């Protein structure tokens, strides 16, 4: 059901961990839905010099977090904000439709982390205009079919 890229990022996730003195931290999702993503950022001169994540969730949630951190790391904040969940899904070679919300969570966790950085640093980025972290926890789930034994 998962592509080789998803399985690779699930079994060998990149950038797992915590940044103790992070410049921005973003957490989205909730335990009720079964996925929570937290992203830590280190930002110097508008460049994302380091990024780490911790995720509670299914295989695609872990893989989405991992690919997002790989694609974001080293980019300027503006470049990274231009990435969307579709870019993460593309890089993973696709996700099952019921799992697409995992990639949205990764995009939003990053945006919430940048938002946190803006709050602390007083900076602002065009790509974050109108972004409200309060809406980032919305339910992106798709109801699929049940299968049962």
């Amino acid at each position: 059901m998962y592509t080789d890229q998803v399985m690779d990022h699930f079994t060998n996730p990149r950038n797992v961990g915590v940044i103790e003195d992070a410049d921005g931290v973003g957490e989205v999702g909730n335990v009720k839905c079964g996925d929570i993503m937290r992203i830590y950022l280190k930002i110097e001169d508008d460049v994302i010099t380091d990024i780490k994540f911790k995720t509670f969730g299914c295989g695609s949630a872990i893989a989405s977090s991992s690919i997002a951190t790989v694609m974001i790391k080293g980019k300027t904040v503006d470049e990274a904000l231009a990435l969307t969940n579709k870019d993460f899904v593309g890089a993973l070679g696709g996700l099952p439709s019921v799992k697409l919300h995992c990639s949205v969570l990764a995009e939003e966790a990053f945006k919430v982390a940048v938002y946190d950085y803006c709050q602390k640093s007083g900076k602002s980025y065009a790509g974050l205009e109108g972004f409200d972290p309060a809406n980032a926890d919305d339910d992106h789930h798709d109801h699929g079919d049940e299968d049962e034994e």
Partner: protein
Amino acid sequence: MKRVYLDYSATTPTKKEVLDAMLPYFSEVFGNPSSIHGFGREAKKVVNESRATIAGFMNADEKELYFTAGGTESDNWAVKGAAKALKNKGNHIITSKIEHHGILHTCESLEKEGFEVTYLDVDGDGLISLEALEAAIKPETVLISIMFVNNEIGTLQPIKEIGAIAKAHGVLFHTDAVQAFGNFKIDVKDMNIDLMSISSHKIYGPKGIGALYIRKGVRLVNFVDGGAQERKKRAGTENVPSIVGFAKAAEIAYRDFDAHVEKLVALRERLRKGVMETIDYCKYNGHPDQRHPGNAHFAFEFIEGEALLLSLDLVGIAGSSGSACTSGSLDPSHVLMAIGLKHEIAHGSLRLSVGDFTTEEDIDYTIKELKTIVERLRMMSPLYDKVTGGK
């Protein structure tokens, strides 16, 4: 790679003895049991012998057992057939919150047609309350359907007591015994069971074949209309090889019953102890001893079940989970919600079910791998950080 199958509650492999018994009924004895010629008659004979064999293992008369395409069809037939046959008497059905979807979705479909359904709560171990059952019965109640053994957490219900209550109130009693048949001794007379669903593929028989026990005198509206098969109650040319296989599987199950139960309980207990002793923040679900001999059900905090299943699969271990991500819906399984598990714990659920081909080595390998996997996933989990302080 080592492969360990611990999903016997999902399905079982067809035993060699069963397959061997089935083989002649594809190309040699292939007649249509409804035909009056010799080819038909020999097929009809074996269908009825198989029926008698299976009926015998539940203390039923052979005329009380009807073959179906599996447990799901039996559930649909029993509940819809009884509700519709008795709709002039009443429109109320009592069931539980932890039934298989074969029952739950059938009840929901009847609700749309104007039937009223009471879904009984269960306690933390998964048991219904007999007092609550009795209190739910009203003059309009026509059917009680309570499963014998739960497929997820393995809990065994007090079937005989439920049967006695149903009888005392003159209400029909159906039980979904798909997980119970072959794993428990069943006596439909002693337990006052009026209707009972069973399925072959859970007891080392072929898939797509099951049966419904219908006590003599109980009338159901037919579920599959057509020809006159199964004494005009269930149409469709009989699946002769599978019927033979089902009977063989039942025969083996009850021939080797004591050894089977003893073996499964020993393996399951080895697994339960091993997991509970080596992994922290883990809950064992279902009733401590009134349960399916092969069922073990765990919930690991801070991690998600699908990630757990995928990781187990990568090391060759097959299990199952009631997490939302594996059911494709937003909520963890209805069974885990009904026993009062919090969402975050239910998401980390894992059912491992042992069977006749499981070995001690399989169990030890699983305990070892599971510990590594749970630790790895917890290291990635922000929820675990909150417990360990990020260390």
